[in-house]
């Protein structure tokens, strides 16, 4: 037994255990309570559900709304859009399923009190673009959190889940989870009949452009620490499209959103010499991706590509000409609220650099890469699709169940279903929540069996960084340099450097190849070994230690998938220098990995992409 592993333990039983209280998790809580009135539904959240997840500070738009009541869009249209944006590779069944339900979620948000802007002429929701509607969304998360709190039996804040528990005799059946309170160090054991992972994707696995204080200002929240993936990977779930990292074109440094500017305010971008560059690079893009270059609107990655090429050609900075579009007080308010609702720091950048968007243009940049399943990208778990129309090999019993029995997911956790954003993640949570209730009822006579030995192993493992520090610090006078341990931040910086330099980060202009990835994996392997020597001097640092662990495992999946896919499918997200073109003959497939816990091996396979819509 470890020095710090004898401690207060709390055991929590539940029918539905929800890991992560962001939009996905709130959706699970609401829907599972609706169908499972007597069930014990527990949300475990590592921060405070009132302001947790990627929507903590709010949003200025809902980016996924069909408007079926006004005949604006149908689910088919949305599937085609998302498919085009991801250059053909999406789970059309999952996307259709989200699209057909998402309007009912948004209508609920409005009923709950979310202010949605209206078009004064039609009375319909104010469109920002074809799929987006404008909201006054400063309190978007607190409103949705209120609904989740009213749904769950208990919301347990400030507990970080580190591992899933598996059934004692059935290695592919989930049985619960373990974690710890990040404030008082209580060890938590969750025994659950079903588990829904709705944790966050990954910021900070690639080195960010700002490495001082500004490292906090990653585009994606710094508290999104890849738990959405690593919990599942370590449980042996099949994962897909982990190479499909996303790079964002945003206002430089503050990473303020550009959607409202491009779509609603019709602002345009040019290179430093005033040239509109996207159209002039069409032929070059066509040579890389063939027919996909014709897709309208131009896919997100290809727009990035055009900008990145301009910068490489020495034609930066790239400018967004905000001064051309802010010609009224109303438009100025829209422009500012866009930031103040969701990226306050962009207002800080403008105020500090004396940039008034009414008067002068603002720089754009392509961000460092992130790993997510809910934006214009679709990394995540291979999941069962909707019962009524999913192709047979996309369906194994329960909608949104992963390849692990009883283990469900939503939001960033589920792969192949891009463009969910906040409303779609909540909606996918609802779908998963309902399925989990059905699963629990169907398996009422077959509850999971808890393996006490697993729990003892994790109890020792989870608190080991405290011991590493307590023992190791005796060797040195003071300071942060010790021979026996490194701090979580040291490990994180090494991870970011490896990923940046070998896996297609900003320092290589998103370029990688097979030898670079192999070298990166070699270095990452050593970092993984060093995870056993992380030192934590507090509970806060213990949280950082486990966040690092989750990021490192997800990074490994990203590299293995990137190595496996021998093509450049999404120029502008990343480039394989040794396979610079899109190759539909061999790679119109999902890449799939499965980590085999028993043998500590990864298996890579291809899974079919079925086009169920013409």
């Amino acid at each position, binding site marked *: 037994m470890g020095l710090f592993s004898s401690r207060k333990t709390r055991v929590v039983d539940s029918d539905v255990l929800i890991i992560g209280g962001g939009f996905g998790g709130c959706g699970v809580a609401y829907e599972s309570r609706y169908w499972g009135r007597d069930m014990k539904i527990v949300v475990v959240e590592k921060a405070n559900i009132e302001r947790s997840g990627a929507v903590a*500070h709010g949003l200025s738009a809902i980016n996924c709304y069909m408007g079926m009541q006004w005949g604006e869009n149908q689910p088919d249209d949305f599937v085609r859009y998302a498919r085009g944006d991801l250059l053909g590779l999406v789970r059309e069944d999952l996307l259709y399923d989200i699209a057909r339900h998402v309007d009912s979620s948004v209508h609920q948000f409005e009923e709950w009190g979310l202010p949605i802007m209206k078009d004064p002429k039609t009375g319909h929701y104010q469109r920002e673009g074809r799929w987006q509607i404008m909201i006054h969304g400063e309190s978007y998360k607190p409103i949705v959190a209120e609904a989740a709190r009213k749904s769950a039996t208990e919301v347990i804040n400030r507990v970080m889940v580190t591992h899933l528990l598996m059934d004692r005799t059935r290695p592919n059946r989930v049985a619960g989870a373990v974690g710890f309170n990040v404030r008082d160090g209580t060890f938590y054991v969750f025994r659950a009949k079903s588990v829904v992972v709705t944790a966050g994707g990954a910021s900070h696995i690639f080195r960010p452009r700002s490495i001082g204080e500004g490292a906090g200002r990653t585009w994606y929240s*710094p508290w999104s620490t890849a738990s959405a993936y690593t919990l599942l990977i370590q449980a042996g779930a099949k994962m897909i499209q982990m190479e499909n990292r996303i790079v964002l074109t945003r206002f430089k440094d503050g990473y303020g959103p550009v959607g409202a500017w491009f779509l609603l305010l019709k602002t345009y971008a040019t290179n430093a010499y005033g040239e509109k560059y996207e159209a002039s690079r069409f032929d070059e893009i066509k040579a890389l991706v063939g027919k996909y270059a014709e897709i309208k609107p131009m896919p997100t990655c290809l727009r990035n590509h055009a900008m990145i090429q301009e910068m490489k050609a020495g034609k930066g900075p790239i400018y967004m000409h905000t001064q051309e579009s802010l010609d009224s007080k109303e438009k100025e308010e829209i422009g500012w609220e866009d930031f103040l609702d969701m990226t*306050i720091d962009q207002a800080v950048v403008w105020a*500090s650099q004396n940039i008034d968007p009414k008067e002068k243009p603002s720089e754009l940049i392509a961000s460092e890469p992130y790993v997510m399943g809910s934006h214009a990208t679709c990394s995540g778990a291979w999941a069962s699709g909707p019962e009524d129309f999913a192709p047979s090999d996309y369906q194994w019993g329960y909608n949104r169940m992963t390849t692990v029995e009883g283990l469900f997911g939503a939001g960033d956790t589920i792969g192949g279903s891009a463009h969910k954003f906040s409303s779609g993640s909540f909606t996918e949570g609802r779908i998963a929540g309902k399925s989990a209730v059905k699963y629990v009822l169907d398996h009422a006579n077959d509850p999971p069996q808890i393996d006490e030995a697993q729990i003892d192993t994790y109890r020792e493992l989870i608190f080991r960084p405290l011991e590493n520090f307590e023992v190791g610090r005796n060797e040195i006078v003071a300071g942060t340099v010790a021979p026996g341990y490194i701090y979580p931040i040291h490990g994180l910086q090494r991870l970011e450097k490896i990923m940046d330099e070998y896996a297609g980060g900003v320092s290589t202009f998103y370029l990688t190849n097979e030898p670079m990835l192999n070298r990166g994996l070699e270095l990452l392997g050593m970092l993984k070994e060093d995870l056993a020597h992380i030192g934590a001097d507090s509970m806060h640092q213990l949280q950082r230690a486990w966040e690092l662990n989750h990021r490192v495992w997800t990074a490994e999946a990203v590299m293995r998938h990137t190595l496996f896919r021998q093509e450049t499918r999404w120029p502008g997200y990343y480039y394989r220098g040794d396979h610079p073109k899109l190759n539909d003959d061999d790679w119109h497939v999902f890449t799939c990995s499965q980590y085999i816990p028993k043998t500590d091996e990864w298996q890579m396979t291809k899974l079919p992409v079925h086009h169920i819509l013409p």
Partner: protein
Amino acid sequence: MPTFVYMTKCDGCGKCVDICPSDIMHIDPVYRRALNIEPNFCWECYSCVKECPQNAIDVRGYADFAPLGHSVRVLREPEKGTVSWKIRYRDGRLKEFTFPIRTTPWGSIRGPSQYDAPDTKGLSSPLLAHEPEALKIEKLPTLPAEGKKQV
């Protein structure tokens, strides 16, 4: 350092500690007041700034790229349903905005248990809670099951 706390305003109530999504607002053991222990993990989300009853927390933009002399102050008034911003530029220019945040009273959301319990047979249907009514269209769209056969 992204957020910081004014010594003379903070009374150590800990509301910022409770709300911070990044777990970086802590109470200093000596001064018994709040501080940001990890500025490079601060997203400038302003959750703590909005929550502080003493208005003791402010933000100084990231030193990497934000020159000094600016301020972006916020007043969130949940009971009034508004959030107000005052933006002061490095050169002294000022901008002020107020936006709505909620249209209903706090705590007024009707939880799922407050609706009639659904028939358990509904568990086998693709309809979610309150559908199809909440979709505001006649019925839930679906696709032909041929998809299954094509495989």
